[in-house]
């Protein structure tokens, strides 16, 4: 969907082929886990019960495993060309991490301080560091959005969102 005009001059970090192999291996691992648990539950025929609990997942996992195996072999023996195209370049990968890592931290902060404070901090930090916006603008957006969410969810629609010590202190 996105043009890869930038990948030409930027150093490739991993190729599509490597990622294809990694994903296929990961899916093989998933099917192994499912098969292991289905074996525990049983995939035989039970009197009055029909197929046991593990029956359906077991066969699904078998199909997953075999199609992943095909994908794995195809990636392994792919002729060079399309598949050796860059999956992501180093600078592009850094840009992805620059939003992915803060996203994980954001969720962790929600658990500590509640969603409203976490959102304010996240928006301000994101705009200041990645967006290089001015402090006034960042704080303005960072305060407005959580306040709007608060009015929308807690007051209008009565849907409670996670709150932390600050909201408790203010009496919510």
């Amino acid at each position: 969907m996105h043009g890869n005009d930038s990948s030409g001059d930027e150093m490739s970090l991993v190729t599509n082929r490597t990622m294809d192999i990694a994903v296929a291996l990961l899916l093989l691992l998933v099917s192994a886990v499912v098969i292991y648990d289905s074996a525990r539950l049983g995939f035989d025929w039970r009197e009055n019960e029909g197929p046991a609990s593990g029956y359906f997942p077991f066969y699904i996992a078998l199909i997953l495993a075999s199609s992943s195996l095909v994908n794995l072999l195809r990636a392994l023996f792919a002729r060079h060309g399309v598949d050796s195209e860059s999956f992501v370049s180093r600078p592009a990968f850094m840009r992805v991490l620059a939003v992915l890592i803060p996203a994980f931290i954001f969720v962790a902060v929600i658990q500590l301080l509640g969603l409203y404070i976490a959102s304010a901090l996240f928006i301000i930090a994101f705009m200041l560091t990645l967006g290089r916006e001015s402090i006034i603008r960042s704080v303005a957006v960072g305060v407005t959005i959580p306040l709007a969410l608060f009015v929308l969810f807690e007051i209008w629609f009565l849907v409670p969102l996670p709150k932390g010590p600050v909201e408790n202190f203010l009496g919510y």
Partner: protein
Amino acid sequence: MEEIASLMQGFAVALTPFNLLLMLVGILLGVIIGVLPGLGGANGVAILLPLTFSMPPTSAIIMLSCIYWGALFGGAITSILFNIPGEPWSVATTFDGHPMAQKGKADEALTAAFTSSFVGAIVAVIVITFLAPLVARFALKFGPPEFFAVQFLTFASFIGMGKGSPFKTLAAMCLGFALAAVGLDNVTGQLRMTFDQEMLLNGFKFLVAVIGLFGIGEILSSMESGLNFSGAHAKIRLDAVLQTWKQMPRLWFTFLRSCIIGCWMGITPGGATPASFMSYGLAKQFSKNGKNFGKGEIEGVVAPETAAHAAGTSALLPMLTLGIPGSPTAAVLLGGLLIWGLQPGPMLFVEQPDFVWGLIASMYLGNVVGLILILTCVPLFAAILRIPFSIIAPIILVICAVGAYTVNNSIFDVWMMVVFGVIGYVFVKLSYPLPPLVLALVLGDMAEGSFRQSMLISQGDLSVFFSNWLVGSIMTLGLILLFWPALRWLITLRRSKPQHA
């Protein structure tokens, strides 16, 4: 003409000031969602779903389906003005829409896109109006084997009609089924694949998956390409609209063909995206101006837009009549029905006629309102795109987190959302398709349930799926679609052999 009477009743339900207001709000929100990167029809509706819990179901679904129409309309704006498809189904619209905008004919391209969207949607709604009651009545006779056969057909058609590697489609689908199986087994009450982890007891919520896969995944890929918008300013002048409409009747056959492709691909869950590509490809082949395609041919805008909307709209037909959604967004709406306590499927037409016909009537109204609204408000929506991504991205992430949390009031779901975001980002780049994954996650339990019931009825005999002509023919069609890629491969192999010798 029983349908007309029911439809009129539906209009009476839909035409209240409150519902009209919701329609307007829904369309507006939908267009904004369609224009913004990272928010699309499916995850936009998923995020807003919790806000409708306190509304009456009919009003709620009217608003949510209007968000969907709005998102379908909105996708075209970014494709034409900025060459950035806001939605996957508007990728084909960029091929000719953006060149038209570059030639200074942005208003014509937009008018053509919106008009074709409207035509596609209205034709699909008419199909729904007359076909849905028939299908529902027919489906009242369905037993578990028939339901399983239809579900099988649903998934087989992803493989038969998918564009990419069938093995990747299969893998994505099975991953969805495997995730759906996690948690409590409804039949035996045993815990599956929870490994004594308490947070896995409830299984994976597909709404969370939708928000992560489509929302966070999209943000990640937008970040990667270091997004900066630079697009044409657009204002739609009335004479340009009339000028474009004058050209439309000439293209009646393109419209017709695109509608047929769209309705077919929507009802069988091919989805809006392949429908738009297929329609574009066929238009290119059959048009007199075929060689001008890609340089700004109006027909190249009409064909994909008509088909995408016809498909997006008709995807609601199997959702309403059989409880089987034809697209991820339809799946989210189905999730909504279940939350409001409505059981989708043939009984819905019997038990909740007000709801069903109110919804169908709102489809007509919503698209009329949408067309007027969007023709008048394009500059406003284009202005949204000029808000820097560094402001939009964190806000969308926050909204996604709120949406994921409200699905089940659990922080674990927010963690899962980010993880699904990574999966979505990687899968899209490696062309593993996401819709089969989402639909498998939604329908997994249902498909497994009807399979096990069928097995109980027949005492484990697989021939129950061929026990009468109805289930047999659905099953056969499913098998043909399932093995279609293999057949195609064999045919090309046989054809190419003599040439080598």
